[in-house]
């Protein structure tokens, strides 16, 4: 038993070592921002759009359609979300944003399912189309509105509402303050315990209602995809379409359903950025998060809870980038030590050349860490993107892709 746990931990060293290192580094005063509830709260807010996009990618790819257009569908979500929010109100904005994304999902489905266009080509075209459409719509929709420009919309009306759990996180009941259990634990500054309390507090306090809705979609997706007949049909279509066809599954319908759901979820991701975030549409606001969502889906090995983990990681990197650029400096030493661990591992496995390279890199990061007090802003800005690449390069070997992913399927053709 103990041996198994030990084995399990050793196998997961790629995930566990950095987490432990971050926890240790966070004990140093100037990097304490790494694990405060504030940072975790921001991480949750930033992880949700990535998670939703990843979930969107899941629905599409499980039915065998590669969806590079997630980013474009997300752009539609931001624009329609802001427009709906400005015209009608916050929740209506969310709904309209989802419709906008779903519309682009429909376009992708028509191109890839009905016309068998190459999935990536269609996705790329969708991204270009979305950028153009959003720009154009923004110009014509707010021609006579103050506080709007060709690249920004006016503020949305109303608010989505926020929740802080009473007793555990100090939320209010009938306007009376309650005890803040995790908050007081966090203030104790105990190693690990306080950091964990900060993590929990980040999930419990000042949480947007939309976040709760989004998080509920994770278990819901597990149920829909793995425990309903429709889910089984969707997955079978991605694995073996001609076989499904012979069993009476409507392959095209399932693919349409998957891609449109994918669009709606990406649209939700986009409108989340607006409604729970900035409050306005800004051009370029999605900043590649659709693609990071796709990466979190790969990281999560096509499982909803895996996507949640992956997007949490990327959200954390994004939160550091936005909230505490100074704390990112602490990550340098984390990277350095982690590379050193890799060196030892490779040396032990007699991969000498690799171990020399990682040792040099490790030394480089150590020197950088010792000779600087902060990381330049321009580097901090791409923290999430480089995290994506690093994480994928460690996680990618064990992925189980749907069998017929990206293969165009035409009724009556064997493939």
């Amino acid at each position, binding site marked *: 038993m103990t041996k198994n746990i030990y084995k399990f931990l050793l196998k997961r060293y790629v995930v566990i070592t950095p987490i432990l290192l971050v926890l240790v580094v966070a004990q140093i005063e100037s990097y304490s921002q790494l694990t405060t509830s504030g940072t975790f709260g921001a991480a949750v807010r930033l992880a949700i759009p990535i998670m939703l996009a990843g979930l969107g990618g899941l629905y599409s790819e499980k039915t065998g359609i590669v969806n590079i257009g997630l980013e474009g569908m997300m752009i539609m979500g931001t624009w329609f979300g802001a427009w709906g929010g400005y015209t009608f109100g916050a929740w209506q904005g969310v709904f309209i944003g989802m419709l906008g994304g779903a519309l682009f999902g429909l376009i992708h489905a028509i191109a890839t399912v009905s016309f068998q266009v190459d999935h990536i080509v269609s996705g790329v075209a969708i991204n*270009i189309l979305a950028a153009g459409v959003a720009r154009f719509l923004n110009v014509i929709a707010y021609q006579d509105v103050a506080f709007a420009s060709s690249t920004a919309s006016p503020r949305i009306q109303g608010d989505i509402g926020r929740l802080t759990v009473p007793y555990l996180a100090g939320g209010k009941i009938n306007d009376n303050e309650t005890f803040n259990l995790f908050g007081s634990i966090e203030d104790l500054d105990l190693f690990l315990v306080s950091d964990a309390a900060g993590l929990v507090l980040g999930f419990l306090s000042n949480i947007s209602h939309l976040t709760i809705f989004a998080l509920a979609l994770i278990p819901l997706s597990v149920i829909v995809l793995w425990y309903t007949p429709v889910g089984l049909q969707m997955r079978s279509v991605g694995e073996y379409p001609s076989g499904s066809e012979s069993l009476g599954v409507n392959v095209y319908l399932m693919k349409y359903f998957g891609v449109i759901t994918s669009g709606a979820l990406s649209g939700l991701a986009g409108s989340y950025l607006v409604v729970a975030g900035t409050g306005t549409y800004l051009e370029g606001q999605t900043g*590649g998060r659709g693609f990071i969502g796709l990466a979190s889906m790969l990281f999560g090995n096509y499982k909803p809870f895996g996507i949640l983990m992956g997007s949490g990681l990327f959200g954390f990197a994004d939160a550091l980038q936005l909230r505490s650029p100074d704390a990112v400096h602490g990550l340098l030493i984390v990277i350095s030590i982690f590379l050193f661990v890799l060196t030892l591992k490779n040396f032990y496995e007699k991969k000498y050349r690799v171990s020399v390279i990682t040792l040099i890199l490790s030394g480089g990061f150590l020197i950088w860490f010792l000779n600087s007090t902060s990381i330049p802003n321009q580097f901090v800005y791409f923290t999430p993107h480089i995290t994506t*690449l690093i994480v994928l390069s460690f996680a990618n070997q064990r992925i189980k892709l749907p069998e017929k992913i990206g293969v165009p399927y035409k009724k009556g053709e064997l493939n």
Partner: protein
Amino acid sequence: MKLRLRIASLSAPLIALAISFGLSSLILLFIGKDPVETFQIMFEYGTKGKSIVSIINRSIPLYISAIAVAVGFKMGLFNIGVEGQYLMGSLIAAFVGSQFSIITPIHILFIILIAVSSSALWAAIAGYLKVKKGIHEVISTIMLNYIGTGLISYSLTNIFDEPGSDYELPRTPELPESGKMPPLNNLFNLEDLQDLHGFVFVAIIVGIFYYWLVWKTTLGFDLRITGSNPVAAKFSGINPNRLIVVAMVTSGGFAGLVGLGPLLGYFHRFTIDFPTGLGFAGIGVALLGRNHPFGMAVGALLFAFLERSSQILDLNDVPKEIEQMMQAFILLIVVVFYEIIRRFIVKQQIKDASKKVET
């Protein structure tokens, strides 16, 4: 291929154009503008002498960018990172080129070499990540675009900034006279117009080189066979991993040339407002031109024409952003019609073949 089928395959872009114009007209009607009048204004403005020079200048980087994308497309490799690659190459070439002065042809050749090799190196990262780490090139190149943007803005401010300049924003030192490409106006008697970039010749050479590379060399054959049938390619002895890296590096090398038209012909230095977005626009042109050197040239000219001629629209109270929509419509519709026509042609060929068997 029979003439009949050739004509059929040419019809796809024409149909797409017609439908996009139709859709755009509907949108114009919807926002209360007269489409016929709008297109007339655009056409008149776009065919003025001044506009034509500008259109050719705009189409040069678009065309080269499309070729960079097409090299990858030919083997089913999607290099979405041309954007980051050309900016990286242009920045380094602009800086290195400004540091010395020799006779013009050698100087320009040297700048081209620097740009090509640095862009190719940047692209090689994506190739490495795909081969060694199994990261799909679409994700890695997109992420590298963001990383590249950060690195460029950092190094422009801190390393390559012109020393002692009183200009507020960071910029590289200006290229010396020997590093500037002379315009072609004297050659074509265009004294009263703005500069026609000399880089247009390079673009034509690049087009011919691309044709030779893809259709006349072993590497090109490997690329095409891998693109149309990866399994057959593997059995014919092609090493797919090596080919991925080579294709990525070649694509990046072409990308290095994208920024040089504007750099050598007009900007003469890398600044904050150096043209961006050419990499993404190139993807559209490559899709429209079906990776064919001639088709992409037409596509680049068409998109450059739309861009230029839409500039007049704001003066006539029509939002010029309609042009971006039109480009996107053309793109999406054309990929659908290419697929329809391809299936039609395959069907016809099967029919013809079975007829031959019968008789």
